């Protein structure tokens, strides 16, 4: 199935877009990721991941008008597609299963 295999960083970007209350675009995604990972993520890496996710049909983008703080320059806003949400749920259930197994072994 298209978009089944995504890297860890792509997964983080996808999850960030899904979790953002505000409009998801380059700056808002990078700022959230910087804060959560406590390291400075390269803007170029975010763009590259967004391009790959869009090519896999997991996100959709649209050009939206820019605010004054950007000098009026437009933004490229992203939303997660239904396929992207399915992929996120699949990855979460996979991790949950693996975690359960790992924890059960730790406790025994």
């Amino acid at each position, binding site marked *: 199935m298209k978009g089944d295999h995504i890297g860890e960083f792509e997964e983080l970007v996808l999850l960030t877009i899904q979790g953002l209350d505000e409009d998801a675009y380059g700056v808002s995604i990078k700022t959230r990721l910087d804060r959560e990972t406590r390291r400075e993520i390269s*803007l170029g890496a975010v763009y590259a991941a967004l391009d790959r996710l869009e090519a896999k049909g997991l996100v959709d983008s649209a050009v939206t008008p820019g605010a004054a*703080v950007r000098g009026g320059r437009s933004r490229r806003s992203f939303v997660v597609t239904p396929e992207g949400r399915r992929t996120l749920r699949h990855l979460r259930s996979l991790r949950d299963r693996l975690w359960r197994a790992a924890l059960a072994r730790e406790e025994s």
Partner: protein
Amino acid sequence: MTQAPRPSRLFTIGGAIVALVVPRDRREMVEGDLIELWHERRQIGRRDLRRAYVRDLAGLVAATRRQRRRDARSIAQRLRGGFAMWMDVRHAIRVFRRQPVFTAAAVLTLTLGIAASTAIFTAVDRLLLRPLPYPTPEQLMEVRKAPIRFGPGPALSQAFRALEIFDGAGVYDSGGTNLEGRGESARLVAAIADDGFFEAMGVGPLLGRPMPSHTADGFPHFAVLAYDTWVARFQGDRAIVGTAITLNGKSYTVSGVMPPGFRFPGRTEVWLPPGADFQVTGTAYAPTVVARLAAGVTIERARAAL
């Protein structure tokens, strides 16, 4: 010591770098993101604004280079694939040259295999898949040896039609004729057929009417054209019905045009009445009778009745 550039100058330099590495339709958005990040960092009191801006630019350049390398690898892989196939073809040609007997056997086997498959498919298509171009063909019966010898008059068909076991009966025979008077002469596949033939086959003309095969005066000179003949020789002219054409030097009035697909017997291009021209089939008159069984009559009962 040189002074660090002011943000506006830095943004100009940054814009130039963005123009170099980012596609035109994305530039405005990327520049906007870079400016917005600058202001966001300034708001939270960061002091390394210029360094962070340069790092953002460097990240952009690095990501673009990585993407270009990835694209180049993909193109190279495709080219390698094409080259490998070409090498395989050349290798195959060399092997064929070294072993001509094996190559000839392989080509012959392939030729026979393809020919056999084509022949089988053609037969299955004609016999099983494609319907015959006339209704209820299972009710049609061919009488090859007419019990009594008849002339080309209506008596033979009438004799069969008089039997209750048949709903219709007619005669036909195959031959050829020369179409003249329309540019170059052309040889046409012709059949003689009487009016009972078209009735028994259950197919009426697309244009015009079936030809009357016998009149009180003898054998009228009417002709019925196949659809393909009408299109190819007469350009599908609807006014052809009622006009005269010359066949074997004799003038015939076109009575009708049959629907597409109907070419029986064989690949007939024109049907003429029996007796109109003995050159069409030769001098001996020995037509085949085609008859349509009446409803509920079996072949066995028809055989017994004949």
